């Protein structure tokens, strides 16, 4: 039999993508995926990120309230006018750290915390908003949260102004010292969501495998506990991380076994690796995020279209200038024009995600109706590294808890206030996040 697989770029291949599919580890534990216990569709939270600020003149609508005219960069989102809030005036003041504004921009985006300047292993930041949610409600789904990226991070070389790459590569931080790396390989994401599709259909075989795995887990757990007992405190911290992750998996197995089971087939084709171009890559990541939310495999996602201070070039736009250098445009029109083109290009990719979410029917509405999707960047003017008045739009209705269709201007407010307001709508009651001063209001008002 010949299985035609999807195309695989050569570079991808060199990075080591093979053709055999790993058997989904957890699948043998349960015949199929667990169904959500809730009858009402849950609220989903997504943060989609683009780097290097925005040309605000063409992002910010000229008028407040309803019926504003869509500026050029937001234009791709115009079809979703009635699903969208433009939030102006939100700031990431803790990102005002020079040098290293870019590292600080990505670091503060979801945490509101100023990063510790270090290129070593002693990174220090704070928990990110998505992880606050993941801690609180992540146990309800197969994956507590999903972190996606469209740009692999460099494995060597320093990042920005004496800040380690961890601050630039990651938006999600499980706690002050542990970033969660976004996965950039669509195939790996797919396998995380669904496992391979060649799981043995014979329940007897699966039961046997399950038994085997249980004895394996018991052994490992035993070994770990014994090992931890012999260690000094600093070593212990390392083994504890391992133990925490192991327990996490045990808990998930237990959860899956206790729940009802339903058949679930992914409604997308399995990707085979990292595609060649940005557009295809972004499309796959959009799709993966959408199917994960739709199947309730997770309720919390972050999607980094490009890393902060990214020097990615977009040849599909007809020029090959790198993004970050371009944004230091020194107010030269021809450079600004190119930056705008890139920003429109990003917005188009995001619009695809929104379109997909809106097209996915759920309950009496759409998946978008039950979602809260934030799109933006951590800086406004990247030429001067301005961290206030950052570009921010919010898509979705949060299951009726948000009244979209407007442009709201706030007096300068920490963007963490928006994070808290969104968390609250998911039933996650957090009082403080980084530099927050309260919960952003005005999202529900007409």
């Amino acid at each position, binding site marked *: *039999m010949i*299985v*035609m*697989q*999807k*195309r*695989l*770029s*050569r570079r991808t*291949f*060199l*990075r*080591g993508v*093979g*053709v055999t599919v790993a*058997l989904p*580890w*957890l699948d043998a534990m349960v015949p199929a995926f667990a169904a959500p216990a809730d009858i009402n569709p849950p609220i989903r939270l997504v943060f989609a990120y683009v780097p290097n600020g925005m040309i605000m003149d063409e992002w910010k609508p000229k008028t407040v309230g309803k019926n504003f005219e869509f500026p050029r960069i937001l234009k791709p989102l115009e079809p979703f006018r009635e699903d969208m809030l433009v939030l102006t005036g939100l700031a990431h003041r803790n990102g005002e750290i020079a*040098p290293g504004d870019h590292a600080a921009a990505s670091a503060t985006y979801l945490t509101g915390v100023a990063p510790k300047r270090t*290129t070593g*292993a*002693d990174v220090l930041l704070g928990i990110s908003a998505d992880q606050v949610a993941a801690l609180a409600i992540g146990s309800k789904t197969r994956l*507590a949260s999903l972190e996606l990226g469209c740009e692999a*991070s*460099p*494995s*060597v*070389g320093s990042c920005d*102004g*004496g800040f380690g*790459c961890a601050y630039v590569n990651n938006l999600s931080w499980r706690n002050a010292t*542990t*970033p969660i*790396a976004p*996965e950039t390989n669509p195939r*790996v994401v797919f396998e*995380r969501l669904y496992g391979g599709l060649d799981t043995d259909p014979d329940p007897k075989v699966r039961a046997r495998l399950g*038994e*085997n*795995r249980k*004895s*394996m*887990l018991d052994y*490992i757990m035993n*070994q*770990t506990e014994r*090992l931890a007992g012999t*260690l*000094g405190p*600093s*070593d212990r911290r*390392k083994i504890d991380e*391992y133990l925490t*992750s192991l327990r*996490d998996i045990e808990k998930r197995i237990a959860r899956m076994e206790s729940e009802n089971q339903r058949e679930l087939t992914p409604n997308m084709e399995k990707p085979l690796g990292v595609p060649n171009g940005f557009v295809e890559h972004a499309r796959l990541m959009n799709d993966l995020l959408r199917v994960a939310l739709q199947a309730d495999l997770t309720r919390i996602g972050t999607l980094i279209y490009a890393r902060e201070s990214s020097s990615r070039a977009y040849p599909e736009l007809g020029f*090959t*200038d790198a993004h970050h*250098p371009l944004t*230091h445009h*020194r107010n030269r029109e021809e450079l600004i024009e190119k930056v705008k083109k890139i920003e429109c290009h990003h917005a188009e990719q995001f619009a695809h995600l929104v379109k997909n979410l809106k097209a996915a029917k759920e309950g009496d509405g759409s998946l978008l109706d039950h979602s809260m999707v934030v799109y933006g960047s951590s800086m406004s003017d990247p030429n001067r590294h301005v961290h206030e008045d950052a570009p921010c739009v919010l898509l979705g209705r949060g299951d009726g808890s948000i009244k979209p269709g407007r442009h709201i201007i706030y007096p300068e407010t920490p963007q963490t206030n928006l994070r808290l307001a969104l968390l609250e709508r998911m039933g996650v009651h957090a009082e403080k996040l980084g530099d927050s001063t309260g919960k952003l209001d005005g999202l529900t008002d007409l």
Partner: protein
Amino acid sequence: MKKVYWLLLFLPLLNWADGPGAPKPAYSADFATSIQPFFAKNCYSCHSAKLKTGGLNLEAYVNAASIAQEPERFEKILQRLKAGEMPPKTVPRPDAEELKLATDGIREELDRAYQAAKPASPRVLARRLNRTEYNNTVRDLLGIDSKPARDFPQDDSAYGFDNVAQALSVSPTLMEKYLATAERVAREALFGPTLKTETVVFLPPVPRRMEFTNRLRVEPAAYYSMHDYDQTGLSHPGSFHLKYRFPADGEYVIRVVGAGFRPNGSDPGRMDLWFDGKLAQSFTVEVNVEQSGFERRPDHWDLRLRVPAGYHEIVVAYPKQYHGLPTAFGGPEPSKTAYDPCKILGNGAGRCSANDFNLPEETEPERIERRRQQIERLKEDELHPRFEGMAVSEVNIIGPSDFKTGPSPESVRKIYTCSAVNGRYTAACERQIVSNLASRAYRRPVTYQGIEELLTIAAGARKRRGSFEEGLSLVIASMLASPNFLFRVDKERPAAEAAQQAGQYELASRLSYFLWSSIPDQELLREAGKGTLRRPDVLEAQVRRMLADSNAQALVESFAGQWLETRRLESVQPDRERYPDFDDYLRESISKETELFFQYVMQKDQPVLDFIDGQYTFLNERLASHYGILGVTGTEFRRVDLTGTGRSGILTQASVLTVSSYGNRTSPVLRGKWVLENILNAPPPPPPANVPSLNEDAVGATASLRQQIEEHRKNAVCASCHARMDPLGFGLENYDAVGAWRTLDGKFPIDSSGVLPNGRTFQGAAELKTILKEQQEAFAEGLTEKLLIYALGRSIEREERAEVRRIVARTATDNYKFSSLILGIVNSALFQMNAAYER
């Protein structure tokens, strides 16, 4: 309590450090006689209590203790004095002897202070295997070479390396991977890979159209500029090469999907398919003109062959792109085939002349118009044939078919130390196999109880399925997911409140993960078991054996690749328009050059100073031609003498020159920074905020890059660092952003002269390297420190630099030989001791 560690550090427990060759300071300086007078004579004129130039008042330091109180400041002073940056070139140079006395004196005071100090950072001993180590470990443990860790999340790096304990965490995603991979690897080792016939598609790395502009009319001269040098045709336009790990012995079809266009009236083209460096088959490619003449019709050619499992190289090339074209092109060996209008209008049923503008039967105006346009373009083609070249649009590997699966001989050898595949189960045999595997996987002997636990797991699995192998498989999977496998912890000498020697098995692991990124082999484990590994003669013999072993390639790939930053070559994207020569073959060649160079220094035990100016390198024809070096033919890399070429050492290797450039131009700043970090061991601080960047568009248009950078440096804030960085980079300006020689940048002539902060001047890379080589001690210290970070998986603290200097001083007496540096590290207390743990 912590002090104990530091005292121990300098105990004479390491015999060579106190041996006859051990360096002793040539003098004993004292503050009042050699340091203070030096400051007074050379520095007080600016750095006085009154002037405090640069915020520095040297009059405030009255005795040796004041040095110890501000080590950081004095390290900086020392660095600037030694580099000749201070006193500034505007005042007379200090007397060389007095300078040496003063700097040595400060050095000694600092080192004394460090001996009394305590370590600044917590030291983690438990190190999780990183991806490379995991891959190598399962290769050496089970004979599985499929690099199963490639799908693990990327390891974070710190201090420049991705094996730093503190930075390596275990996320739930990684945990999942560990469990799934453990199972998969175990099954592959015992039952062979799970296989089915599949098609893997490889695409050229860039869209083909970027290489062949549609309707491009090539200037006749271009036909001849294409070299015939490279016999595999790798460098020919439109060629494509790939490396693939064939999962099993079996039959495969290699399918080349071609695309492209040869003008009507050309001779058929030729496409060669090379397999592992040998021409496997030549295909004749008919002139590919479709009915319309405008659309490409992809065609494909198949080669079916039996392939043994493992990595193989496939090249597809069109060796004679420009041969056999219509005479109008003026190319070599013009075509003997006549223009054939029927070929174009093949479907036009009998209308074989482009001049026949016969109306088709249909009469819709659109169709008539389309037909008319078609004919117009055909006429145009006839008059001015266009040429697009042929290329590979994809290569598919279809297979395996007709394969046998089963454990590889290597796996069988490593697992079945008793019994055989499908052998009969006996309890004794199972015990032997399991205890052998466990002691290797855990890198130390496993207790009776430990083996019992594993045997219980096997028994459980055997009960459920009944086979001996199923039991072993579950045991192996369990071991591979165990923290005792995934983490390196010294269990013989668990962390204590005082520092102590590492256990013998721990020492064996440290050695093997340092030099091999893998588990200790039987011989190391045997020495550890005998308790003899620490014996100097044994240790030295082992290190030499390990460096000569093929596994030491790990040091080349992991250490050198990160130290020299050449790992980035895989992802750099030089601007294709500016550097059209930079194809993947060149990318691989320049990477290989640096690998081979490092490997040579390591295996031939050359002085590490060869990295600065070794008069040799390793080239194949492609790279030699990139460098403009004659007389190297073929694809094989060989050692080439560089005398007289202007190139030497690593600084003028294309790999380093490329990773220290931007995609579209060179960067003297980046290169200067690279030299400061990797050669002079004096990394510059990060740039201040809101630095205006260069005017990219103006580079090469209204001002040379150099002029622009010099403009930039007029800013006093920038100048202090850029005066150190930029001149170093200017010295390398004769090499473009992909390392080719040049004399012009745009329309501006290259000026590769430079003035260093100490006033020394140089002209070009060769003279720059002469100056750099004078700083050999600094270079060796930097390299040693990086090797130590890599070996220990942690940062090296300022206080520990004294140990670094001791290693270097010792190495210097052995002509900086590579092995003496490695031995120095392996013998150092830093490598041999377990630190006291921290609360």
